[in-house]
């Protein structure tokens, strides 16, 4: 169905870059003998999940977020590798730096995905599709990795265009895509109308079902409905937003903010934790890692959040906003412990996570009238004075060289969380 509507505003100058099978490709680049073989990066354990799969593995139906055990059944001859997040972060930073040579307007979505606003670069570097092709070449030259690039007049369309540019898996091996796909000015609605409505941001399974009930299957169907009907079916704000997206209208800017919004860690356990003692230990471990990363990033968290997932996948989150932002191991741990106390672990905790958000400049500290006077030995902020010492020791001798005593076991290495290790995603089977 063709619909008439306002064409999207602005020049074709929005670019979406998505690395192809990023983690798997990084692994293949450093282990060239794996080229052409199915490679799966992810947790090896009973509860591990796939973080990335090469196109060879995808041909067998393996995809990210799938339980590793299922991936093994689908593709038993695949090479299963644990993840190395530190390495991926380093590669990602170098790739993002390539984007920033083109435009300062870069919005990273994750390690392997970013939006770029290249409108300001068109005059000097040529049309956006040519810029996109050159970004792709530079990433391939410099990092030996391929990416797919979508180009359009806004972020929504650019991201959808990327899907068109992506390689596809097939039983005969990967079929490489165009690498760059541009939706030209004026062609937006022709591109958008036939797509399934679930392609739009904000259309999850529930919304898709409700829309299907109204006879809406494609984006074009949705766009041709009167705005009022969409609003009454999906709510005023959400309905208006989706109706605009369906007509190709998205005026969200490329949001440049390199500072993280939150810093956190979570961990899935090989077996459910039920006792406060076990949970307390894991909490200490996570708090130590989170606080140490806060300090590393030079920020303090005003809000401490915990996430608890039970064996039946029910997930609870709790948060507390502190009077002043914190970066101390003890302060993060005690805030998180206060939150965990409100949750009954009896059903069995499968996953525990801690994060700090509301991040503030770590060099700013509100002084206290009273604490300066008091010198009680168990004051948490006094114990925080050891944090810089711990940081220094770790910088010189490695993360697991020092840590909370409760994580030590005779004869075993200190069980601190260390992202530099070749640590599997998710736990190993016990």
């Amino acid at each position, binding site marked *: 169905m063709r619909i008439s509507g306002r064409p999207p505003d602005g020049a074709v100058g929005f670019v979406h870059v998505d690395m192809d099978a990023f983690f798997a490709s990084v692994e293949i680049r450093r282990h060239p003998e794996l080229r052409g073989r199915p490679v799966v990066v992810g947790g090896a354990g009973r509860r591990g999940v796939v973080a990335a799969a090469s196109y060879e593995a995808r041909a067998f139906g393996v995809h990210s977020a799938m339980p590793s055990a299922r991936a093994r059944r689908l593709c038993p001859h695949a090479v299963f590798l644990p993840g190395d997040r530190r390495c991926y972060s380093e590669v990602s930073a170098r790739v993002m730096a390539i984007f920033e040579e083109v435009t300062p307007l870069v919005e990273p979505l994750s390690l392997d995905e970013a939006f770029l606003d290249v409108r300001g670069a068109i005059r000097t570097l040529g049309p956006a599709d040519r810029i996109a092709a050159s970004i792709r070449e530079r990433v391939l030259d410099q990092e030996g990795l391929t990416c797919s690039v979508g180009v359009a007049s806004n972020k929504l369309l650019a991201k959808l265009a990327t899907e068109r540019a992506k390689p596809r898996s097939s039983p005969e091996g990967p079929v490489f895509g165009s690498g760059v796909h541009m939706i030209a000015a004026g062609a937006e609605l022709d591109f958008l109308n036939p797509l399934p409505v679930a392609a739009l941001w904000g259309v999850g399974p529930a919304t898709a079902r409700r829309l299907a009930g109204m006879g809406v299957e494609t984006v074009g169907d949705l766009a041709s409905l009167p705005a009022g009907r969409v609003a009454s079916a999906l709510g005023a704000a959400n309905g208006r937003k989706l109706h605009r997206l369906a007509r190709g209208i998205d005026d969200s800017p490329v949001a440049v*903010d390199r*500072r993280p919004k939150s810093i956190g860690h979570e961990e899935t356990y090989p077996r459910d934790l039920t006792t406060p003692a076990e949970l307390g230990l894991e909490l200490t471990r996570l708090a130590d890692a989170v606080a140490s990363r806060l300090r590393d990033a030079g920020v*303090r968290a*005003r809000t401490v959040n915990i996430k608890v997932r039970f064996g039946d996948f029910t997930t609870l989150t709790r948060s507390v906003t502190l*009077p*002043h*932002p914190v970066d101390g191991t003890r302060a993060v741990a005690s805030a998180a412990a*206060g939150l965990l106390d409100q949750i009954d672990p009896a059903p069995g905790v499968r996953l525990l996570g801690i994060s700090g958000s*509301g*991040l*503030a*400049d770590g*060099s*700013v*500290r*509100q*002084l*206290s*009238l*009273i*604490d300066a*006077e008091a010198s009680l030995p168990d004051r948490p902020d006094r114990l925080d004075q050891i944090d810089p010492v711990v940081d220094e020791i770790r910088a010189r001798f490695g993360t697991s060289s020092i840590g909370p005593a409760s994580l030590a076991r005779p004869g075993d290495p200190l069980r601190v969380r260390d992202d530099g290790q070749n640590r599997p995603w998710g736990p190993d089977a016990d």
Partner: protein
Amino acid sequence: MGMKFRCERDKLLEAMSAAGRAVTSRGGALPVLSGVRLELLGGALLVTGSDLDLTISVNIEVAGSADGVAVIPSKLTADVVRALPSGAVEVTVADEEANIVAGSTEFSIRVIPAEDYPNLIPAEEPGSSLAGSAVTIDGASFRAALRQVVPAASVDEARPILTGVLMVPEAGGLRLVSTDSYRLAVKDLAGTSILGEDQKVLVPGRALAELARIIGDSGEVSLRLAEREASFEVGNITLTTRLIEGDFPNYRGLLPTGHPNKLTVERDALLEAVRRVRLLAQESTPVRMAMGPDGLSLTAATADVGKAQESMAAAYEGEELTVAFNPSYLMDGIEVTTGPEITLETMDELKPALLRSVGDEDFLYLLMPVRVS
């Protein structure tokens, strides 16, 4: 038990709203506390809300036709009464429903079983530890004093003692002290002698904030003190609060004895300037005050957002100095330090700074700086 009365909508709304402010929004352990309790005796209706720590009762005159007790949902009923047109309202409670009728509008609201409501002994009743003689305080000056000290009390439930305002006798008058450990407010009410010589009480800041709302522009507050609770009566409203147990920090030790540097500035101008500049002090960044012979310069900057700068005339004695403050704490301090001109006395950029009003010896606001490393 049934109950029936008629009264003006405005009067009922006022009572419901005042009592409702003590009702906890968190639900808590006792669901019945999400309601207000109505007790009708002849022509007197007592409306009570409580979260067990704080209880507010309002006594209004109504045209009663059947005495009784009922507990009705606080927020919903207040919303209903608020939505009614001005004029007479008739309330009838029978069985499990409260019927609220005004003109051609009728609401039926499910009541909460009244027998679950905890026994909150009104102060006047014999048997209450609060029974006995009351002391009266001038309402307007007490309200002004409360508004000066309550903002410095902590709202962090993890530090219960600091959520209270300390009341102690001082030089024949009453002294109010509050601190959240980042700032400290001290107010003396000369000539207001309500405590025994060695008596000190720690009253929750939240209760005093409510009390300040209740006290009108004139009139008196009568205060009754008991070992564990205090009650304040203002007109037809009685506020009863649990007292906080524990030792308040030794605030006298925190009061600096001398400050070498002194800035004197027009209060309203400073307030306006901080209000403007703080717009760029986001994400816990401070407002910096640079003081020198040329006056005062305020700056604030937030990474990736922007910065603000404002200079203003001010008299300054002392060495050039820049001190950084949490903008909210600084604003609070300037707001409660009333008078046309105020002084900011400092020692250095890490020591407490003192805000006072020129010529007012009865109030001080001590503020710790923010350290920027």
